[in-house]
């Protein structure tokens, strides 16, 4: 069992602690209600405007950008980002067991090709280029936005797979609200999350705290056990995570200043693979991060200006009991970026982005503490020659220490097929790059500081339909076709000495189709809502510099050809229920596609009730994960739990009627 590295809201005994924690939080929040009444300002219009504007701008984007529905996010409250992305987006999530390292890939590429930002700050590990979504709790973001493909050149450096944007923007709602979520589940799982938000028309503040822990010694079936199939308990798999975010924003006339802080702490035992026997190397890992971002934006007349500065300090402590290895890896990222826009005419706007990102990383496997600096500038023009047509042309040049990078560009157009914007068609074409991570460059042995950046050339065409009924119910359908070619793919391969090294060795063709459907229906007192995402992604190796390479023409490993998920919720009076279905086709585990994980099908469900009186609202959900009790693996030999049960209770105290809840 991992020692907890900080104090949690909930100690060990569930029932006693739920009561204790509720009492503590209630006692803390009750005085605030009185305070809040004085600063309460009606601001419904403002909240609605924020929501509608965001949705419209995403649909009008010349490439695919989607925001995960806030109601879907609420279903996974208290959970981790990997679970949300797997269940509610087209990202393919690969995770080493249910609490193990989790990466997410977009459009058939690897997790290192997915850029992850938090309030504009890149949080991919400078070392391996990945973001571990298993240790990013939902509580760390109020909004999750996903860009597919590498067309977005607004950041300092890009990624060729796509981007996951996490943000915690405070709302100037005038609402003072406190919320506490407590949960307990199978295999010693306990979780808690508390949020507090308050503010006025000019000032807003959010505070969020969370903690979770689990023994996680779940049952699984070992089909390859020497004595025949057996059911076993997972060993060395406990985890404890916790953290906090704090956001404050101040706006005055046409300017906005905000500050964001995030402390994250995760301590995990790392279970070994289950081959014929369950291996246990006594591995454990602690990840601690402290991140901060400040933003200032100004809109005087035709000019818009944004300045963002931030930094991240990350420490990773690793221990392997078997080989008595203890390692400390650390990294720091600092960035500052500016964005200026000037509207020359009503139809033409010029945009200039410039920024610098400095990374420093240390590892037992580096000879030195390594540094990396990226400066980039991009120039864009947005032009609306006619009312229905929007054009975008953007070029970016990166200057990277010790590396030459080709210019990147993106060109796109969106066309309103219907005057009311129900139907939009769009197309974009881009060429962009992904820089090697520090492990690729400096790891000893095998790091290769002569690597070239990976490049991607491709585009997409999409059709978007959205209809909002007068009742407010929304129905959407989005279709996208995409194709791209990735060259100079970086992979670690053995050399003559048997040592592995990073090389630019293969080319990959990616092509696919994506479908997103969202529907809301109300019948009498029933309200139903559903979201469906489907992706067909063929990502094939097309060229290789390895002799006798049988991976050419084959699908990339762990990239499913078909991925589908669906979330359906139904509500009647105070009751609600929902089901989530996720299915993926086989995922190849060898580069010649000779071995694979079988197709997976998982179904989760919940039933619950939501009721309130006065300023208090209580939600209680009973959740069954893996309803069909089917064995599954996301990474070969790292089993996921069979059927598990969770109970979650949420208590919200608010100074405002809850009609604002769907606006954030």
């Amino acid at each position, binding site marked *: 069992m991992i020692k907890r590295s900080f104090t949690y809201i909930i100690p060990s005994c569930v029932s006693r602690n739920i009561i204790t924690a509720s009492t503590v939080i209630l006692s803390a929040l009750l005085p605030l209600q009185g305070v809040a009444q004085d600063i309460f300002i009606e601001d419904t219009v403002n909240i609605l405007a924020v929501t509608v504007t965001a949705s419209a701008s995403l649909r009008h984007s010349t490439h695919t950008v989607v925001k995960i529905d806030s109601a879907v996010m609420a279903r996974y409250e208290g959970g981790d980002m990997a679970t949300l992305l797997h269940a509610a987006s087209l990202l393919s999530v690969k995770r080493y067991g249910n609490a193990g390292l989790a990466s997410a890939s977009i459009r058939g590429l690897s997790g290192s090709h997915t850029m992850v930002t938090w309030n504009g700050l890149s949080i991919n590990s400078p070392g391996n280029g990945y973001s571990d979504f298993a240790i990013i709790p939902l509580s760390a973001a109020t909004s999750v936005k996903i860009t597919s493909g590498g067309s977005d050149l607004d950041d300092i450096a890009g990624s060729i797979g796509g981007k996951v944007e996490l943000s915690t923007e405070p709302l100037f709602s005038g609402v003072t609200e406190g919320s506490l979520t407590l949960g307990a589940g199978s295999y010693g799982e306990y979780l808690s999350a508390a949020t507090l938000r308050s503010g006025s028309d000019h000032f807003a503040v959010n505070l969020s705290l969370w903690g979770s822990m689990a023994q996680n010694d779940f049952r699984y079936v070992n089909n390859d056990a020497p004595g025949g199939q057996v059911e076993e308990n997972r060993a060395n798999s406990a985890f404890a995570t916790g953290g906090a975010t704090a956001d404050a924003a101040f706006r005055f006339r046409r300017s906005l200043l905000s500050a964001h802080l995030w402390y994250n702490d995760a301590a995990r035992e790392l279970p070994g693979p289950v081959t014929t026997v369950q291996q246990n190397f006594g591995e454990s890992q602690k990840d601690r991060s402290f991140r901060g971002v400040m933003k200032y934006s100004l809109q005087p007349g035709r000019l818009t200006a944004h300045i963002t500065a931030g930094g991240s300090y990350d420490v990773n402590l690793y221990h392997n009991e078997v080989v008595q290895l203890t390692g400390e890896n650390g990294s720091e990222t600092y960035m500052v970026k500016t964005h200026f826009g000037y509207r020359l005419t009503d139809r033409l706007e010029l945009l200039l982005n410039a920024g610098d990102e400095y990374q420093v990383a240390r590892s037992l496997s580096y000879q030195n503490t390594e540094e990396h600096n990226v400066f980039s500038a991009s120039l864009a023009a947005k032009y609306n020659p006619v009312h229905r047509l929007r054009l975008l042309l953007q070029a970016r040049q990166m200057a990277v220490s010790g590396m030459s990078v080709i210019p990147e560009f993106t060109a796109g157009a969106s066309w309103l097929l219907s005057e009311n914007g129900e139907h939009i068609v769009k197309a974009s074409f881009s060429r962009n790059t992904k820089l090697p991570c520090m492990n690729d460059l400096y790891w000893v042995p095998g790091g290769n500081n002569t690597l070239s950046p990976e490049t991607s050339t491709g585009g997409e065409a999409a059709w978007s339909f959205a209809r909002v009924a007068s009742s407010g119910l929304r129905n959407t359908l989005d279709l996208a076709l995409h194709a791209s070619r990735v060259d100079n793919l970086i992979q670690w391969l*053995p050399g003559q000495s048997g040592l*592995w090294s990073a090389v630019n060795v293969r080319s990959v063709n990616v092509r696919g189709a994506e479908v997103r459907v969202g529907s809301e229906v109300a019948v009498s007192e029933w309200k139903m809502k559903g979201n469906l995402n489907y992706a067909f992604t063929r990502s094939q190796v097309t060229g290789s510099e390895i002799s006798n*390479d049988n991976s050419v023409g084959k699908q990339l490993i762990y990239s499913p050809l078909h991925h589908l998920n669906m979330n359906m919720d139904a509500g009647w009076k105070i009751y609600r229920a929902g089901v989530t279905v996720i299915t993926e086709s086989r995922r190849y585990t060898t580069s010649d596609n000779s071995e694979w994980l079988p197709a997976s099908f998982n179904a989760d469900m919940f039933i619950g009730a939501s009721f309130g009186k006065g300023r208090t609202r209580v939600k209680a959900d009973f959740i069954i994960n893996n309803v069909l009790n089917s064995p599954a693996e996301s990474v070969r030999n790292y089993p996921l739990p069979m059927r598990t049960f969770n109970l979650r209770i949420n208590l919200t105290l608010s100074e405002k009627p809850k009609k604002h809840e769907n606006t954030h």
Partner: protein
Amino acid sequence: MKTLIRLLLLSVLIMISCERADDPSLFPAGRGFFLLNEGNYLAGNGSLSFYSTETKKIYNDLFTAENERALGDIPSYMAVDGDRGFIIVNNSGTIEVVDMRTMESLTTITGLNSPRQMAISGRKGYVSSLYSTAVSVIDLDRQEIAGSFDLGSTSEAMVIADGKLFSACWSGGNTVIVTDLETEEVITSVTVGLEPESMVLDKSGKLWVLCTGGWQGEEIPRLVKINTVTYEKETEIFFRTTGDNPSSLTANAAGDTLYFLDEGVRRMAVTASVLPSETFIAAGGRLLYKLAVGPGGQIVVTDAIDYQQKGDILVYNSRGILEDTEKAGIIPGFMFFVQD
């Protein structure tokens, strides 16, 4: 008519039963070699193949086909005691004891710490370890761990000569440790080069040790000849530079010629005092991984390609002429020759 039908049914039954009785085993008996495909680290997809030098065909996935389960994570070595094989499955920490005629698993010995290789003497097997300084002793009759003794260092290759166990301290080491198997006590250690990777006895009972010079190229690799009676180093032959990466030292059946991998296959007489300047078999753009020489002089090398797909075996005759290429499992590694 009924009689005819009965006869027909009877003949069909006889044919089926004959077929079952003669159900060809998964691989033919006779000369050839077993091949352990290591599989990917942590993936548990190691496998067992047999290449018949008579049919010139490879028979893959024998263990899984026979036992309907995986062999494990990184099968690295196979030792044979009569009609039983002991397959060391390194990262699973197990030894699969199999019937050599069918590959049926007889038992699985568990509880080993990263076992690597096994040497047999009498009714005992001695198992080296990548992580532990102890050598595990296996009771071959009871097929279980009977004890252990400490070397003071981790171990890899093992050779038994004259009742002494010679253990190469490969991972970060530079010694060959000599243990008296009667007393299971260390007699001495011989300092060789950095990371002794493979060892073989020649026709004179001299022990040849191939030292890689370290995984980061800390030293120039070398071949060292040790007198197994006096434990003196008799010869040290250095390679060219620290950039050389020799491996897989072995010898022919007569024990008069050494073979090893070094940008292809090289061979040299055990009487030579210098390394061969030319390759005997060129690598031909392949990344050769393991080498074995059969009793008939066949030379077999494996190519793991990108280590993430099924590799190749290349079978050459004693003159170095390619006779066959076959697709094996993932990361084809250790080979064990059988005669009849």
